[in-house]
């Protein structure tokens, strides 16, 4: 099945991205396709390139980049990102920044849309 993911909360403060990550890993192991993760609201902070947690702590940037290496599309909302300073210079990958139309696209192309 095609599963789309919307992340609305920022990293570390909330558990949302951790639950989303574990969900996505389990979904891929079960043979499902992740159509993309759209980061909206404070969720855009999850792709801020300057996050630097202590070394013995989970590294959300790294976990998400690993998903990207496995082919998962990561999309940071340009409007929500700009508002919060997550822009070309501060996002993990410039290509990830895109518009809200991509969120609707995920709704259209995914069998299910899950919000975290």
């Amino acid at each position, binding site marked *: 099945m095609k599963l789309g993911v919307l992340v609305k909360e920022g990293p570390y403060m909330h558990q949302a991205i951790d639950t989303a990550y*574990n969900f996505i890993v*389990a979904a891929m192991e079960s043979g499902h396709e992740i159509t993309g993760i759209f980061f909206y609201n404070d969720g855009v902070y999850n792709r801020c390139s300057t996050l630097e947690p202590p070394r013995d702590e989970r590294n959300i940037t790294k976990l998400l980049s690993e998903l990207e290496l496995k082919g998962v599309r990561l999309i940071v909302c340009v409007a929500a990102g700009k508002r919060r300073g997550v822009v070309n210079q501060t996002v993990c990958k410039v290509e990830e920044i895109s518009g809200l139309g991509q969120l609707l696209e995920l709704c259209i192309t995914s069998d299910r849309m*899950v919000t975290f």
Partner: protein
Amino acid sequence: MLHIIKKSPYESSAFNDAVNYIGQNDDVVLLAEDGVYAAKKGGKFEELLRNLTKKNSVYCLMADIKARGIQENEIVENIKVIDYKGFVEKVVEHNPMTWS
């Protein structure tokens, strides 16, 4: 529908709002993150959940109860504990709505 409840019922209206939308038919409930506190036996929401499990399947996420020191025998009977793969299965079976 799959109702995913992510906030503690003691803290947020998410649980209450979700319960209002849990229908009679094939609606199922997943308690995740702080939402799992609703499942604790002896808590304020025990009876409500007991009644809910009579008509709907209710699940809670294993990782979240374990992290919070809640043992399986401390949660309301008939609530099933599932892992992330079980969570994925529920999403495949039902259209999800997240209450947070």
